[in-house]
């Protein structure tokens, strides 16, 4: 290690969701789903651009989504979409200072008011809704 090293925790520490409760897990999932959706968005533009190859090209490509792998991929996209949207609304409210508690004289054991049940409920709702949407999606896709 260089003597002038800043000793930053690095990407490993930033992405480690284990130590700081559900809020840090939500932070991590938000990044992961944001990047996943970005990846999907690029792939989606590429996929839909197949229409330029005419009906045959389009249908050939679309057939990929009708496979088991395609269904699993789409299920993941549904989950990412729902979690990212619901948690995104929670994060936007939080960033606007909504539901983060009021300043008050802290007392032992100093539980932070910003890490409150309302925001935790928001995170759990995002996870549960994503799971329900994924199950519904699977039922539709695999139930054909």
């Amino acid at each position, binding site marked *: *290690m260089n003597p002038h090293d800043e*000793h930053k925790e690095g990407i490993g520490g*930033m992405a480690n969701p284990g130590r*700081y409760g559900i809020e840090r897990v939500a*932070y991590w999932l938000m990044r992961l789903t944001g990047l996943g959706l970005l990846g999907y968005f690029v792939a989606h533009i590429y996929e839909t651009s197949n229409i330029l190859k005419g009906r045959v090209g389009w249908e050939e490509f679309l057939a990929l989504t009708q496979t088991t792998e395609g269904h699993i991929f789409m299920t993941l996209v549904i989950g990412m979409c729902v979690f990212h949207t619901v948690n995104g609304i929670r994060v936007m409210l939080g960033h606007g200072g909504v539901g983060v508690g009021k300043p*008050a*004289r802290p007392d032992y054991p100093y539980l932070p008011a910003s890490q409150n049940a309302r925001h935790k409920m928001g995170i759990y709702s995002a996870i549960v809704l994503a799971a329900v949407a994924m199950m519904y999606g699977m039922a539709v896709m695999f139930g054909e």
Partner: protein
Amino acid sequence: MAQSYEIDEKKSLTSKVVTLRIARFNPEKDSDTKFMEFIVNVEKWTTVLEAILDVKQHFDHSVAVRYSCRQATCGSCGMVINGKPRLACFTKVSELQSEVVTVEPMHNFPIIRDLTVRFDRLFNTHHKVKPYLIRDDSEITSNTKEFLQSPEELEQFIQFSNCIKCGLCNSACPTMATDSSFVGPQALAQAYRYVADSRDKGKDTRLKIIDESHGIWRCHFAGSCSQVCPKGVDPAMGIQLLRGYMLGFRS
């Protein structure tokens, strides 16, 4: 260097044995951190700092650790204890519920030696947000001889003036983990402390300072800062309230 040493001077009928693993690193000499293990006897009330001081007293005096008040007031003994930033004097070994206690220097602070880190960046970012009342007159020149404030006005910021500059929040923050220029939760919480003070007139100046690319907008509300703060400052709350104000959600 992962040797094991036993100190049994503190053995008693109620004591328990734990392994204390101390990170040893001297940036001027070593290429890597090595852990030294010590077998220590602790009571229910023994703090991690006391265990480290036992090691210094009975076995290896060269372990570098910074401490002063031993009562969570000076903010000197922040370190990573079993993976999380905590004050060594404010953490009992028993509350960790582990037979092994690993102590490492705080992340996101350059290491001086072993458990001791440099605070230059924290003090600079703290100073950057102008942590003092900004106004043209002074208490001496005003007619009342002091700037009056109601108890309600005091409640708006008193929580945030509990900050002891221990740096635990900056060590836990996921943005600090990768961004060398981020102003950090400690300084942002202090920006809120002064913006929310009814005696202060420096709001615009202060908001301009934190409204930059490595300023307040880098906070993603992960809340880890608030979870590790030993004084209940809740930097995450201050930051969101400040941002709500800047975005026009709050007045």
